[in-house]
């Protein structure tokens, strides 16, 4: 699905990623853990195509496409989805209008017809149930006035609507209480299939009780320093990261 090879990236001349390698296959869930400042969120931003970062070396193959050659929206249209750590508020733009625009542009890119309004609304109704999102929220402006939990649920709702090949969840558990965490995780698990994959970026092991990873990677100082099975997360929770440095 995605193969990252020797990725180096910097911001304002400061190197954040220093030769990162990672391969995720279809049907897999990978967790990336690591201390603050290890470069976890940077990795997510770079994969999504944020222009603040400069890739200085390395390659990213996304299902046969050179990901780094694409602009942000084309990466999204190829099926890469980023659930933001801090979802952005867009005042005055309704969630529904936002998603329909996104969905139709993605479909257009793939040479598909625009989705009929009726089908779209049915889809909204169905998918919003998945994350127990109040139907009212769909007609409200994107993330505006949403609580922290609602914002994160809205991210997963959008993921359900856009049906990506690869979803990257950037600290989706931050700021969630246990109920919200369960709802968000259930949503993610329900969307899991043999044809898609998920990268979960998190600081805490707690989330991995709900979204069970096939692999756990530890990111430290811009590189993956250890990879293991899901039990590694528990070990990290117990011992911290210092023993890996």
């Amino acid at each position, binding site marked *: 699905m995605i193969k990252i090879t020797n990725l180096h990236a910097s911001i304002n001349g400061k190197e954040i990623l220093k030769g990162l390698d990672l391969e995720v296959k279809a049907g897999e869930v990978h967790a990336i853990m690591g201390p603050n400042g290890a470069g976890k969120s940077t990795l997510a931003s770079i994969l999504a195509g944020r222009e603040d970062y400069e890739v200085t070396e390395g390659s990213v193959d996304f299902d046969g496409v050179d990901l780094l050659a694409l602009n942000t929206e084309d990466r999204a249209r190829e099926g890469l989805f980023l659930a933001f750590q801090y979802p952005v508020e*867009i005042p005055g733009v309704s969630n529904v209008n*936002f998603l329909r625009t996104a969905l139709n*542009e993605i479909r257009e890119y793939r040479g598909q017809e625009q989705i009929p309004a009726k089908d779209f609304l049915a889809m909204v109704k169905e998918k919003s149930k998945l994350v127990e999102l109040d139907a009212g929220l769909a007609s409200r402006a994107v993330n505006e006035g949403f609580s922290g939990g609602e914002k994160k649920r809205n991210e997963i709702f959008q993921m359900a609507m856009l049906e990506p090949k690869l979803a990257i969840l950037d600290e989706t558990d931050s700021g969630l209480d246990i109920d919200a965490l369960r709802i968000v995780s259930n949503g993610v698990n329900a969307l899991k299939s043999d044809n898609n994959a998920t990268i979960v970026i998190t600081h805490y092991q707690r989330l991995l009780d709900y979204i069970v990873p096939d692999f756990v990677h530890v990111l430290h100082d811009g590189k993956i320093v250890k990879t293991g099975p899901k039990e590694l997360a528990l070990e990290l929770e117990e011992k911290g990261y210092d023993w890996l440095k």
Partner: protein
Amino acid sequence: MGYTEEELAEDLKNQEYKYGFTTDIESDDAPKGLNEDIIRLISKKKEEPEWMLEYRLNAYRIWLTMEEPIWAHVSFEKPNYQDIIFYSAPKQNQKAKTWEDVDPELKETMNKLGISLEEQKRLQGVAVDFVMDSVSVATSFKEKLKELGIIFCSFSDAVKEHPDLIQKYMSSVVPVTDNYYAALNSAVFSDGTFCYIPKGVRCPMELSTYFRMNKSGTGQFERTLVVADEGAYCSYLEGCTAPQRDENQLHAAVVELIAMDNAEIKYSTVQNWYPGDKNGKGGVYNLVTKRGLCEKGAKISWTQVETGSAVTWKYPSCILKGDNSVGEFYSVAVTNNFQQADTGTKMVHIGKNTKSTIISKGISAGKSQNSYRGLVQIHKNADNARNFSQCDSLLMTDECGAHTFPYIECKNSTAKIEHEATTSKIGEDQIFYCLQRGISEEKAIGLIVNGYCKEVLNKLPMEFAAEAQKLLAVSLENSVG
């Protein structure tokens, strides 16, 4: 690489005026320039009564004593008033009586504008008084309105048919001496719309006028007068568009609204006059005086979407004279290239328990300058007056300017006035968020801008809101490459 903001800025510069064409119709022009003879000629051509001519001549004499104002934040070459054709009527053998009688070429023009009367006719509940270069050429729905006692006609017709009403109300809100352009308009106004809603009548349809300038070198001076008698209601739509011309055209209109006790007037404008080309050449000077008077319990609501004109200078205002009266102003002003807009409102609280709301959204792109200028004035006896103002500016490029000049004058201790203003760049985080969901940058900007203006767009009647959204898109977006 994605579509960068620099590229967008470049595209905006190259944005050409969509409505740039002229109609090949023979017109009946007055000679260029302005003097008492021209005024007599205008009055004669329009077969006006003596009192109207006297009114015009008086206004002209006042105008001669006035000086053209200079403003700190608007600069443009002052029009040469001796080089303007002050009267231009499309030449027709006789005035059209029915829609079928209207010159087909005129109909074609309207079609090109995308506001064709035929289409409008199909839209239920819209009556249109179409003004093309000063003379009203077709009026529809007149009969239906007549049944309710509503008068909706061209200003010229009203002068002849309802002289009592015109003499009573004309200049009662905007006196001839009000300002330089109002005096000029009073002297030379060509035509416009008169509307009277009798006591207790709720006008069942949106009343609409489309203004459009056609003839090269003409100034358009319309005059609009809307009177809503006690307890009456009407909603009035004004759309403006002008063909593309190199020289600057002058537009100096006067709009007066009178809302008697417990009456309500909604006045909506979508203005899309030619803004000049990307080098700042040509375009319309839109120097307009709009003011409404509210008697007891009355309400006047101005909504405007201003995307056109090289220079816009207008402050639709409310005189809240009666107790418990309400004034509202909702505005979106978009400037691009070298456009200059200085627009806002004046809310004058005289009566007790008067309320006013101001929502202004400015969007500046290119090298344009966009200013909000507004006055909130609370008089000594205006107990419990309330005002809330929100003025936001969005900057699209680093070569444009966005300014806010609110004047707040309060002489009553029970008043509450709140004013807030913000200026910011279009949010990069918002754009990135949209991009990550697969939305193109151009569409993302359109979405964000429309969302930003939503509070104002929501105030427009449905048909207008859709058009206004399209206009915003045309003004600020362009297809990539």
